[in-house]
């Protein structure tokens, strides 16, 4: 493999890692920006999406199963997220620390439930044949460059989801309401926007995206009761680095984190590369506490 091909491969890996982080962090960024709640059970929504993919593939085997699994996981995780918001989060909305503890408790309950239902060992989702190959370049200066089809697929999904959310926020009436509540909740309410309903919808949307993230995770590894735990911390990093509640910020932060981890791992252990990443985020926040993109919002200024 040539040096160029290797470096280009790492650029691709950077995008690939970033695409996972975008999917994992997007929902968190949305609800955190709007409601200032830290949902510790967000990782379990990923897990839920993974298990829903596993179940869907039992009902719909064959090449299109994974495509069917996306909306199933989106709706399934969205409903559970909506229930969580309705039953726990909005009742504790004025007590952020209590929300933190309560959602952590929910996360433990969901993990144990998954362990009881599916067992402590992970379940397997087998990628369909059309994803089971590698795009290899066998001639020219880029000889030896391998791009796994699953990774390309995940990049596409992340792009579609990002585009969809951006359109929703910018072009629809619901998006307008979300932006209004985000900027100034009391005034938006005074204008007749049902901010309570907006919270619920945005929260369910965010957990639904986490469900989709769970489906794509299933293509890369096993789905275990604790699979969400390995993504929740990077997702929080992305949200903080990106600037709370900003879509562009979340995307840029995911790319930064994806590239740092892909390139640090060329020279370092995966473990040490994570340390480098965390040190970078700490330093960055020292210099720019508001994150990559600063969001002007009454909610965040209080």
């Amino acid at each position, binding site marked *: *493999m040539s040096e160029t091909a*290797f470096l280009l*491969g*790492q650029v691709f*890996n950077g995008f*690939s*890692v970033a695409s*996972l982080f975008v999917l994992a962090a997007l929902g968190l960024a949305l609800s955190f920006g709007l409601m200032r709640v830290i949902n510790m059970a967000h990782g379990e929504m990923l897990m839920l999406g993974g298990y829903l993919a596993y179940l869907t593939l039992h009902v719909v085997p064959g090449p299109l199963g994974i495509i069917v699994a996306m909306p199933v996981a989106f709706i399934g995780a969205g409903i559970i997220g909506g229930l969580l918001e309705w039953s726990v989060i909005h009742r504790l909305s004025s007590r952020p620390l209590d929300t933190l503890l309560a959602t952590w408790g929910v996360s433990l309950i969901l993990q144990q439930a998954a362990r009881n239902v599916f067992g*402590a*060992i*992970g379940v*397997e989702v087998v*990628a369909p044949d059309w994803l*089971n190959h*590698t795009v*290899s370049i066998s001639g020219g200066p880029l000889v*030896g460059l*391998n791009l*796994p*089809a*699953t*990774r390309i697929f995940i990049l596409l999904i992340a792009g579609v989801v990002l585009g969809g959310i951006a359109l929703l926020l910018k072009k629809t009436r619901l998006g307008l309401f979300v932006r209004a509540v985000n900027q100034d909740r009391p005034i938006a309410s005074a204008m007749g926007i049902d901010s309570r309903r907006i919270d619920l919808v945005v929260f369910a949307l965010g957990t639904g995206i986490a469900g989709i993230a769970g489906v794509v*995770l299933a293509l*890369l*590894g*096993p789905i*275990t009761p*604790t*699979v969400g*735990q*390995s993504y929740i911390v990077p997702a929080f990093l992305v949200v903080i680095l990106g600037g709370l509640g900003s879509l562009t910020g979340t995307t840029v932060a995911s790319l930064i984190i994806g590239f740092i*981890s*892909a390139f640090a*791992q*060329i020279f370092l*252990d*995966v*473990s040490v*590369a*994570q340390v480098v990443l965390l040190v970078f985020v700490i330093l960055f926040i020292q210099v720019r506490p508001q994150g990559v993109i600063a969001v002007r919002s009454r909610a965040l200024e209080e």
Partner: protein
Amino acid sequence: MVFRSLSFVAALLAGTMLAAVAANSGTVKVGVLQSLSGTMAISEVPLENAELLAIQQINASGGVLGETVVPVEEDGASDPAVFAQKATKLIEEDKVVTVFGGWTSASRKAMLPVFQKFNNLLWYPVQFEGNECSPNIMYSGAQPNQQALPALSWAEQRGYKRFYLIGSDYVYPRTANLILKKHITHSGLTLLGEDYVPLGGTDFSAVIAKIQQSKPDIIINTLNGDSNVSFFKQLAAAGLTPDKLPIMSFSIAEPEAKAMGPSLLAGSYTSWNYFEKLPGADNAAFVEAFQAKYGADAPVDDPMVHGYVDVFEWKKAVERAKSFDQQKVREAAVELGFRRSPLGLVKFADNQSLVQTGYIGQLQPDGQFKIVWHSTGTIDPQPYDPLNFPGKTCKLH
């Protein structure tokens, strides 16, 4: 759960009645301390089952020194601190004469001071990183020179010269690789790279890119648990299936292969001192008895058989010592000499570790391992690798 607790009560009642019946011939208590809950339960519950099977078989054939063996079960809960606490409870309150248990090195390290303090004896059945030598522990699992180094000799004999090491980031892979690295360079082979991923890590894109670039002949894999599935899956997606790039793993046995899906891992190699498919009447009898009790498709693996063998070695040692006293038992245990077992011929050496044979198995699509290599005769255990710890020895007897 209701049924479980019911059957538990029933078992307790039956146990009490048995104890009452056997009262005239006496009973002796032993501790069985494994994780029955938490992340390690998945591996340790089957191990405990194997230990209990051995106790049941011993009782069925008249017990030890005429006394019925009563196992006192405790849950280590996958937490080293709980292991230490429960070990204390077993020794102080239940007055057990010895304890069978432990899995992770962390649990063993936590229990060690307890067994030293009360001068009791622990039978530890899992392969580990060596570098420890206590008179209060019988180490039946492989030392590094009985698992990792045989794997290296095998790879060398196969003509593999370029190695890549990958492992989870904790004590066992780090120490095992420290030893392997010394031996790789000492034998004039090439080490291309070494990578550690946090426990439970799932992203291997950069590691795989480095592997593709350095083109090793073989990967030596000490990843633990589910990380293996991610690693094998992403390797396959990058076109590196086990038939194109051989992989030697140290933490994948029959139950793991079954759980992770044998089709994904088929063709990869692993090094143990036991495989379910090992020939011999002793192994056939063990597998039959285990599956008769715990289900026809219950897999058995290396640590389970070591746990099973430990109980019988303890029985023989007690009978030789004619006493349950730990000092006399451990002295007798190393004097027993070679005995037949499901593992083949084994005996405890003077350093209280097991002399045993090394095997390399290749995973078949049905989830069983085909034995492709075995060491010439048994291998004497070396707690301290001579290349890494020159001059350090383990003298206990």
